């Protein structure tokens, strides 16, 4: 897997000032372990959160985020700094997550594993309107649960496009660069994901009293 650190006009908010980041990068290249640790601390929250949204599992997310940082460490000597560390990590984590999801899908196919989707993914904390009635809150939780299951059933690339656009707020152009796809392909992936959600939403409406 080749990760290029070419510049991208970023919606990725920087957790540290570019100058401070550059100094830490130089120190890490010179072998200062603590400088690299500082970089990891600064980017850990965003990287783990992204991996969690993409994989749906917190434990896998931490593993993937650690792998992304390990790759950054190994690329320190060749890291040109044309993109920020955050953007580089963003791309690497997304690609690692897609590979991870593909492997998981394949594993399930090979071993004919048909477990309950709800058991395979951590339930996200749901923000339910506290002013709603208990019945409405229950209904909202049920719908959210169904949508989450639907999200986890999306094909890996489609899911990545949806997560990056809907949850991370990344423009489609940047998603295309991140995933190495044509913008038109990214648009098609997003639309297919949205169609899936709309169908599920309509089914949920028909089922609920």
């Amino acid at each position: 897997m080749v990760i290029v650190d070419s510049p991208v006009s970023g919606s990725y908010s920087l957790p540290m000032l570019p100058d401070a980041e550059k100094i830490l990068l130089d120190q890490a290249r010179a072998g200062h372990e603590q400088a690299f640790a500082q970089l990891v601390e600064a980017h850990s929250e965003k990287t783990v959160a992204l991996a969690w949204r993409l994989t749906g599992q917190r434990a896998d997310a931490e593993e993937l985020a650690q792998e992304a940082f390990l790759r950054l460490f190994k690329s320190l000597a060749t890291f040109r700094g044309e993109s920020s560390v955050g953007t580089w990590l963003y791309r690497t984590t997304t690609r690692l997550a897609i590979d991870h999801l593909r492997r998981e899908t394949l594993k399930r196919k090979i071993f004919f594993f048909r477990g309950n989707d709800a058991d395979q993914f951590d339930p996200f904390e749901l923000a339910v309107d506290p002013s709603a009635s208990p019945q409405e809150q229950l209904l909202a939780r049920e719908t959210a649960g169904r949508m989450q299951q639907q999200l986890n059933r999306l094909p890996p690339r489609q899911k990545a496009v949806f997560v990056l656009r809907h949850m991370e707020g990344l423009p489609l152009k940047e998603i295309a660069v991140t995933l190495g796809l044509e913008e038109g392909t990214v648009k098609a992936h997003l639309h297919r994901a949205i169609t899936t959600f709309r169908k599920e939403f309509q089914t949920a409406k028909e089922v609920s009293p």
Partner: protein
Amino acid sequence: MNKNCPQELLTLYHYDELPAGQRREFEAHLRDCPECRDALAELRICLQDIPVPKLQLDPAQKLRFADQVLRKTRRSYRPLAAWGGALAAAGALALAVVVLHPAGKRSMVPARPELADYEILEQLDLLQELDLLQELELLEELDQLG
């Protein structure tokens, strides 16, 4: 929303991904199409129902995470160091065997050049003698023929 309505544009409009001109055209379409307006409203409600995991790591968790990464970076160098050490040890052992072992010593001592030359000369002499013998045999045969 009927079959002729541009469904993909609805998605792109919601995410503000339409170029200005196309956006204006779609807004004009929305004004005239109550089905598309309903579809857009429903899409917005539907997307609100998708849970977004929020993560907050406290300083201690960040420190623990960084520590785990550092441990992995140290481990990633260990196999290389181990291979390097093993190769160096193997090289030293091979050198010791060659230098110290008597058989090794013998095989490594170069043959003296003058001795080698002498052996070649001996073989050449034998060849010359063989030629002489052949010539003698020919002479004897000629004698017999008269």
